[in-house]
């Protein structure tokens, strides 16, 4: 009987988000419930933000801003859509969004995996610093702006100015790219990149859903790293 999973259920129609988050934060020292279910989020902000525990939080419905922001270790599943900044500054753990994500999904995040089943809008992965993002739909304009490290994989299309001022993050896009931002270029897909992409998709649990040879790779031309007067217009 010791392996029985007990699920803690919190209904946000009757409990404030602050109470939920406080209870989840207190799990950092170890808690009894490893599985939490959150009902009726109705677009509330900062649901399950700031977690640092080996716990799974399943949210039934649509969430507002900064869901699962700063996440460490936890698995957060949104059975709905997410507002701006889902997984912002995540350090580790996993976030699954079953619907769409709004702007700045995975912004500045240093680690972990963010999987979005639907589309992500503008600035997906802006300033990402090590996170792996997989978007099964398309992403909006200005995505991966100043992206520094990690991977952004898109099954669909990318909007305008993809990877503007990008550093060393790797972008894999299967569909069309509307335009590339300053200093972002297409690079050849070689064996190592197919392997790397496959590994990332495997980690995200979607490895056999799609053929890695369909993807194209984009990254930094490394021309804007250091100031050069000839590039003044591009900074």
């Amino acid at each position, binding site marked *: 009987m010791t392996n029985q999973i007990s699920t803690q259920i919190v209904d946000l129609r009757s409990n404030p988000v602050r109470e939920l988050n406080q209870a989840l934060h207190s799990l950092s020292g170890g808690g009894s419930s490893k599985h939490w279910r959150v009902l009726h989020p*109705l*677009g*509330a902000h900062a649901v399950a933000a700031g977690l640092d525990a080996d716990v799974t939080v399943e949210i039934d419905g649509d969430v*507002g801003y900064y869901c699962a922001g700063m996440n460490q270790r936890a698995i957060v599943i949104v059975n709905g859509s997410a507002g701006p900044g889902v997984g912002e500054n995540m350090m580790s753990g996993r976030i699954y969004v079953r619907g769409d994500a*709004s702007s700045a999904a995975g912004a500045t995040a240093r680690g972990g995996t963010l999987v979005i089943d639907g589309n992500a*809008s*503008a600035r997906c992965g802006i300033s990402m610093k090590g996170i792996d993002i997989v978007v099964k739909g398309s992403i909006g304009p200005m995505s991966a702006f100043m992206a520094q490290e990690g991977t952004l994989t898109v099954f669909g299309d990318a909007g305008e100015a993809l990877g503007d001022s990008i550093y060393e993050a790797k972008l894999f896009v299967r569909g069309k790219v509307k335009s590339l931002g300053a200093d972002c270029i297409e690079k050849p897909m070689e064996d190592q990149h197919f392997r790397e992409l496959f590994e990332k998709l495997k980690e995200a649990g979607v490895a056999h859903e799609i053929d890695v040879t369909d993807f194209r790779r984009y990254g930094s031309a490394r021309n804007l790293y250091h100031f050069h007067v000839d590039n003044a217009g591009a900074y």
Partner: protein
Amino acid sequence: MCGIVGIFLKDPALEPELGKLLAAMLVTMTDRGPDSAGFAVYGSGTPDIVKLTLRVPQSFNLKDFQKALSKAVGVNIEATQRATHVVLAVPADKVQAVQAQLATLAPEAQLSSAGSFIELYKEVGLPADVSQRFDLAHMSGTHAIGHTRMATESAVTTAGAHPFSTGRDQCLVHNGSLSNHNQVRRRLIREGITFDTDNDTEVAAGYLTWRLGQGDDLGNALEASLKELDGFYTFVVGTESGFGVLRDPIGCKHAVMAETDQYVAFGTEFRALTVLPGIENARIFEPNPATVYFWDRAA
């Protein structure tokens, strides 16, 4: 900050509920704009009657004003008061005559909007209080736009609250801030546009009025504003037959929309849409930056 809500009904069965839906949406945006709130409701009307919405002081004597006005223009003018706002129903050919009389008969009154369908109410205070004061929940109509304000560019006053009327049956609400509004205002003043406030949004409204006066349709006027207005903005514009949405070229300010067989709705945040019927099965999407969207009732 600031919050915008809007709803355009496709299903006439929902028309009696319009005010109730908008009021519920408006309250969800209180965190984004607790200073003031306002809304424009497009209700029943005919082209030969123009509704003038006036803002009047608490002490306003409606009966005396109505009597004097009717006498002065030679026809009976119907007037309905809701708290600090009065709606006059004026035969189209008497609008100029009525407006000319306002300066003498009600010098303290300010014109909020004019049009055959629009009524425009706005006031300082929490959104819930403002919508209750005007009994928004019992208003009906085809479409409506609401705004909750957190002031950044000018004072917290009723005149500075949104929506701003941009012309007959037109209004504008704005989330964001314009950085070149003083310069554009000076230019528009030279073109003969008048302004009541130092507010940046009024400049955007004035800009649209000016373009429309130059012969643009609303779509073209909004396209032109992309070049002229600098700053962060999401605009929602109401017209007699629908509403339009425009976000700045980098989509700085949030916007989310929902569409079902019954309605198209706009919210600054998804929370605003959660109060709508059938939202679970609605198509939810974000309008693209620098793209003019329009939802119009077929003429």
